[in-house]
């Protein structure tokens, strides 16, 4: 298969990317190549396939013109296959650009991350269970309807802290495998109860942020993988018949 070194699909304002990918392959009759000799061994050439510019006006020597003519001939012989090849070349180039965008986004996210505040202000109390009222996207936060209370679980003999919420349920804020409440727990409960709704929101926010940060970790790992794939693609191109500068 002919490698297109001179004919390339480009994304101009008048040929948006979406059109390039979904457009039918221009037929052989739609290929236009203009060559003008301006000096002894200097030519100006340009090429279009339908509305797509494949080569803006560019200077060539006679060897370059011969190469360009061979590529044009290849297109005339197999427009469908050639168009796929040109799309493939464009995809190779643009993937490297998109991966650089992913890397930039990841860097900016990493810079923002230290400024997130995941501390709720409480060291022992935490939002410990999934609750249907906060599980869904766009749902409202829970409304606390009474103070948080410490009690000793009669079955397991361990300290537990719960707070009542508007749907009649109780949410779990502390549950540890200890036989007695640790020092400072009651003081935290008092602090929670001084402003129950704000305190619960702080706990919910801390919980949401820790999940948020976990997703960021996943994105950073994806970015590393995508970078490795793009690098493999670049090496594959370099090892093949064409180099990135040819694409």
């Amino acid at each position, binding site marked *: 298969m002919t490698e297109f070194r001179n004919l390339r699909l480009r994304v101009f304002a008048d040929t948006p990317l979406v059109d390039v*990918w979904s457009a039918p392959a221009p037929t052989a009759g739609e290929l236009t190549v203009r060559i003008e000799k301006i000096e002894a061994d200097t030519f100006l050439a340009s090429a279009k396939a339908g509305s797509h510019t494949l080569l803006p006006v560019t200077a060539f020597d006679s060897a370059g013109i011969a190469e360009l003519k061979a590529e044009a001939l290849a297109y005339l012989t197999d427009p469908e296959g050639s168009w*796929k090849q040109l*799309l*493939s070349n*464009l*995809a*190779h180039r*643009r*993937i490297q650009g*998109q*991966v650089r*965008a*992913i890397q930039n*986004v*990841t860097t*900016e*996210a990493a*810079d*923002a*991350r230290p*400024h*997130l*505040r995941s501390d709720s202000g409480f060291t022992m109390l935490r939002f410990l269970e999934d609750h249907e009222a*906060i599980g869904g*996207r*766009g*749902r*409202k*936060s829970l409304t606390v309807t009474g103070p948080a209370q410490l009690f000793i679980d009669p079955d397991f003999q361990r300290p537990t802290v719960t707070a009542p919420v508007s749907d009649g349920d109780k949410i779990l804020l502390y549950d540890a495998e200890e036989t007695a409440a640790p020092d400072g727990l009651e003081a935290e409960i008092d602090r929670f109860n001084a402003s129950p*709704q*704000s305190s619960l*929101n702080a706990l*919910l*926010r801390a919980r*949401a*942020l820790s*999940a*948020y940060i976990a*997703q*960021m970790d*996943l*994105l950073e790992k*994806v*970015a590393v*993988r*995508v970078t*490795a*794939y793009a690098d*493999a*693609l670049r*090496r*594959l191109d*370099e*090892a*093949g018949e064409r180099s990135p500068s040819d694409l």
Partner: protein
Amino acid sequence: MSRFKHLYLTPQGSIWDLPDDAYAVVEFIDTPRRPVMNVTLGERLLYRNAVAEIDVDAVTAEVERFNADPEAGRKHLLADMADAMLEGEAREFIAAASRVAQLADHLAPAAGLAPLELDWDQWWQIDPTSHRTVSQATITADDTGTVVHVEADGQVVPLFLSTLSRRMPTLEGAVAAFNYDPSTHFRALHMDAIRKGFYIASYDARRAALAMTGRAEHMAALITD
């Protein structure tokens, strides 16, 4: 200190640098169109809106709350900006990863050599420069299973692994096709593996980023106390 409803930072300049010793300053400015309320922190704008359209007392109260504890106030403003930026970054990440997956469709024709494929855990370690010296693929089948491998620059690369010892006709056909032009087909398998990697990465990115944007909405609802 609870979060601010009116004051906010936008990413500009050295976006994470705020003056250590600055207080928020309120100015009322008569612009040619209408009077506006301006709140600044050093060089950074924290608020700007037409006086006629806002609750001036509420904004002023927030400025006073900021100035009562500027250090905590700065942290809150930076945290709010970080939240907003991360949501934006997550969306950009989705968009870029999706575009990569779409572009991967066009990378090259699929090798069409199933069930042969480059080993998922090893393919990126394979040096593409070895493509020119790829050997014929060999099928080895015994009681422990079936293996197809090639040698690329002396490196043994598995193309198929199965615990089944029965030889499959499709495998025989794929190996025969591969051996027609090992170097070209090895490159095509490599491209298939890269394409598959981009697809999976895009899926993972979309899943993580959507979870992030959902969380961001939830967190925003919790800031209003």
